[in-house]
């Protein structure tokens, strides 16, 4: 691959200027809260129940890490904050206030329409908490509803029932939240297509602004995996699961939610800014146990060892640089992350970024995927076809 055109090689002079020095960096912030009431059967995220002492110590360490990033925050403008887990809604109002004020006290500027999301699980939301979130600046709540049938919720080890979801949404509305996401899961054990359609209808009845509909992935090492392998749980077959996905697109579209990514749907203008930053190769910093960052072209990951995380006095020692992206890596990621979005990738943007057309860089891959009917061109953009949404990995692999 030719590097010509990107970097002017000046003989005898090692001071190259590759781009204008950015005055301010636009930053996404992810904060991980690893504790939960009980681990769900399918969950392979870094999470576990924790006692009061562990929670307290973790919060201290987290605040220490946030403050340790002062210089980064000072040169940045915050675009979005996402507090995920685990179950961040487990935090008591005073705990949350402490965390939020540490963040606000450390952060420099915020974009005017900055998005601040907290992940909440039904059954853990109270009026006090909701009011506290609101006061501290949170403007979006993402609720793990998953399914509307209590028998399915029990089956996958959730702690809540459908009535808790309704109750939590009521509380959030009363506290003034108008921007709500609901997480739903299809392909659950014993879930029928009718169950799924009902789940979608029940979710819509709660009038969220955004819906994330994920396919269940049976991950190694989860109790679910054992139960599926031993035959204790029966998953819907692939055809049924794909019909559920097709139902999702159809039903949500009819209800005015536009699909903007493989698993994400939103009312116009309510697409999650934080989610988009992952797919747009925007910069973000991950704070907390096992959190990932993308900064200065490097993919960085914090330790996954809770004890180490809590003990470490020097937050800078928590992180390991997993890879430093070169031009080729960045092009590859630009393609396979960007193509997750239904809008796809724009050749104009690609040229601006890399100085060449993606058709020059990936001629064979693109031709084959167009031929196979997995990609299509729309007004200078390349995007997944409807079939490409089902078979997206084949598309992504071509660019990896």
């Amino acid at each position, binding site marked *: 691959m030719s590097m010509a055109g990107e970097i002017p090689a000046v003989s005898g002079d090692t001071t190259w200027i590759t781009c204008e020095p950015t005055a301010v960096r636009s930053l*996404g912030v*992810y904060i*991980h809260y690893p504790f939960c009431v009980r681990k769900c059967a399918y969950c392979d*995220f870094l999470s576990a129940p924790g006692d009061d002492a562990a929670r307290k110590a973790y919060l201290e360490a987290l605040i220490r890490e946030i403050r340790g990033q002062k210089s980064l925050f000072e040169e940045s403008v915050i675009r979005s904050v996402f507090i*995920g887990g685990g179950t961040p809604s487990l935090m008591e109002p005073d705990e949350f206030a402490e965390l939020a004020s540490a963040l606000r006290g450390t952060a420099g500027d915020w974009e005017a329409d900055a998005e601040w999301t907290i992940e909440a699980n039904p059954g853990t939301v109270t009026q006090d908490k909701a009011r506290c979130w609101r006061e501290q600046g949170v403007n979006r709540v993402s609720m793990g509803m998953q399914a509307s049938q209590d028998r399915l919720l029990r089956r996958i080890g959730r702690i809540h029932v459908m009535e808790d979801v309704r109750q939590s949404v009521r509380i959030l509305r009363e506290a003034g939240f108008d921007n709500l996401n609901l997480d739903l899961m299809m392909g659950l054990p014993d879930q029928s297509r009718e169950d799924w359609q009902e789940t979608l209808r029940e979710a819509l009845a709660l009038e969220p602004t955004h819906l994330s509909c*994920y*396919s269940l*992935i049976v991950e190694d090492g989860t109790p679910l995996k054992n139960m599926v392998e031993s035959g204790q749980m029966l998953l819907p077959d*692939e*055809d049924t*699961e*794909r019909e559920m996905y097709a139902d999702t697109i159809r039903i949500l579209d009819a209800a005015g939610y536009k699909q903007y990514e*493989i*698993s994400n749907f939103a009312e116009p203008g309510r697409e999650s800014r934080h*989610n988009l930053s*992952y797919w747009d190769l925007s910069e*973000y910093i*991950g704070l907390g146990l096992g*959190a*990932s*960052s*993308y900064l200065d072209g490097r*993919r960085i*990951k914090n330790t996954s060892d809770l004890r180490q995380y809590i003990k470490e006095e020097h937050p800078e020692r928590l992180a390991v640089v*997993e*890879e430093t992206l070169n031009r080729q890596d960045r092009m590859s*990621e630009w393609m*396979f*992350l960007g193509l997750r979005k239904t809008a796809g990738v724009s050749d104009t943007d690609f040229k601006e970024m890399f100085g060449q057309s993606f058709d020059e860089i990936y001629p064979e891959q693109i031709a084959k995927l167009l031929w*196979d*009917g*997995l990609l299509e061109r729309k007004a200078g953009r390349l995007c997944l076809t409807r079939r490409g*949404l*089902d*078979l*997206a*990995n*084949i598309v*992504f*692999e071509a660019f*990896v």
Partner: protein
Amino acid sequence: MIQKNIRNFSIIAHIDHGKSTLADRIIEKTGLLTQREMQDQVLDNMELERERGITIKAQAVRLIYHAKDGQEYIFNLIDTPGHVDFNYEVSRSLAACEGALLVVDSTQGVEAQTLANCYLALDHNLEILPVINKIDLISADPDRVKQEIEDIIGLDTEKAPLISAKTGQNIDEVLEKIVECLPPPEGDPDAPLQALIFDSLYDSYRGVIVFIRVKEGRIRKGMRIRLMAAGKEYDVVEAGYMGAGTLMPSEEGLSAGEVGYFTASIKEVSHTRVGDTVTDAARPAAEPLPGYKEVQPMVYCGMYPADGSHYPDLRDALEKLKLNDASLHFEAETSKALGFGFRCGFLGLLHMEIIEERLDREFNLDLITTAPGVVYRVYKTNGEMIELSNPADLPDAGEISYMEEPMVKAEIMLPTEYIGTIMKLCQDRRGVYVSTEYVENTRAILHYRMPLNEIIYDFFDALKSRSRGYASLDYELESYERSSLVRLDMLINREPVDALSFIVHESKAYERGRRIAERLKDEIPRHLFEIPIQAAIGGKVIARETVKAMRKDVLAKCYGGDITRKKKLLEKQKEGKKRMRQFGEVEIPQAAFMSVLKFDEDDKT
């Protein structure tokens, strides 16, 4: 050394009955090795052999024993391979001995293989000393086993030592009995040289090391010798004995009755065939020793590097293995599906598996092997006969007058309760019943004539699984017989895949074709389009399956911002696809080629 103080013997035993352990104890007790030098199993020097518990190449070791009569004896312990594939090699090792120890596991009893080797030993007029092993185990029943040896083989067990090779119990008695019961060699040291080759080994410094038993005359350094069957002459560079793992050259050389080795800058083991006679070029023996035969491969398969660019590595590896294994045959061939590879010939299935494993382990080669087949004789309408080892070479039906397949004489030893089940199995595999021999109340030997291609397909596994491991098998090639054979072709996406074709009896074709189609359906991953899989004979489709088009391949989850993890998953998936063979538009995983070889038993029950 005077002849009357030499004992040349082998140990014969069924796998796992303790042959190698007893050999270790004998070597230890004769004091030739210090404790430190002792590896667990000295004779089994290849890692692979140790893991499988099988001795592949015969070797010999010279031991010094101070007997209770105050005299010093030389024991030449000649190891024998313990598997039916190496029957001929066993027979040559036995021909180098006067006696044999028959080791029988006192918890198990006599097995078909023990019996076969025992008969071989009796055929060579060897004196057999039974040794009852594993008496330290709770389940040991030495009296029953002794009775069995007397009833089945007809050997006197009165003098049989009861031992535990593992704990070393009663090994001294074995040593004394060797002196007492096994005869010393005979032969005239002044007669013209006649030495039997029972093994050879390629060494990159010395050339081939030839293991011999001198029957008549003597051999020494500087002598010009002739290999009578090979018709080659060489000058002896070195002659001597085998110590434990080392060669000990001797100035006097070897004379009648002795066992040892010689080297003569020989470049290929194929010149020093097992069973050939070494004689003095200046004063040759009138005739060679009896029993030489040229070993022909019985089983063939195609071997291809999984990664086509490793073809030269595979060629080099096969050439290296061939240096030490005269019975391995190979020639280059090309498959439309698999590219460049080799058609390889083996003594039997085990021999094939050993070569496969060595290529994997010692040469790190990832291989695709095609279904093993036997050599068929194809008689053409124009009177010509061809020996067919590659199904792809089968002439058009119009040119074939008739075909013949190899038949073997099979002996299956088993507990009587399994007779019904195993007779059914033999019948399923086109066996022709010959007779049943009851060896005692609870055991019998079934005699069958069976097509070799049924045996190599999955007979061993089926036999073991249906008798819970109790039945054992021995077979030897008997004759060629006219048979209704057809070539079964597998079509993937309407294209025949040559590497999946094989020759099968007409009566089996439908069932086999259906099953392979089912397996291929499971092994071939879903593609973007639907893939028909068909089994066909001469263009006529007899079975069909379909690999449905892929509907889902997407990582829906977002893993927080952990893009690295996501990328790794994609890379892993992509890597998996690289290991597949592109055949037209279809990617066929390596496992699909192997699935043709898989054991049928699961489907049957």
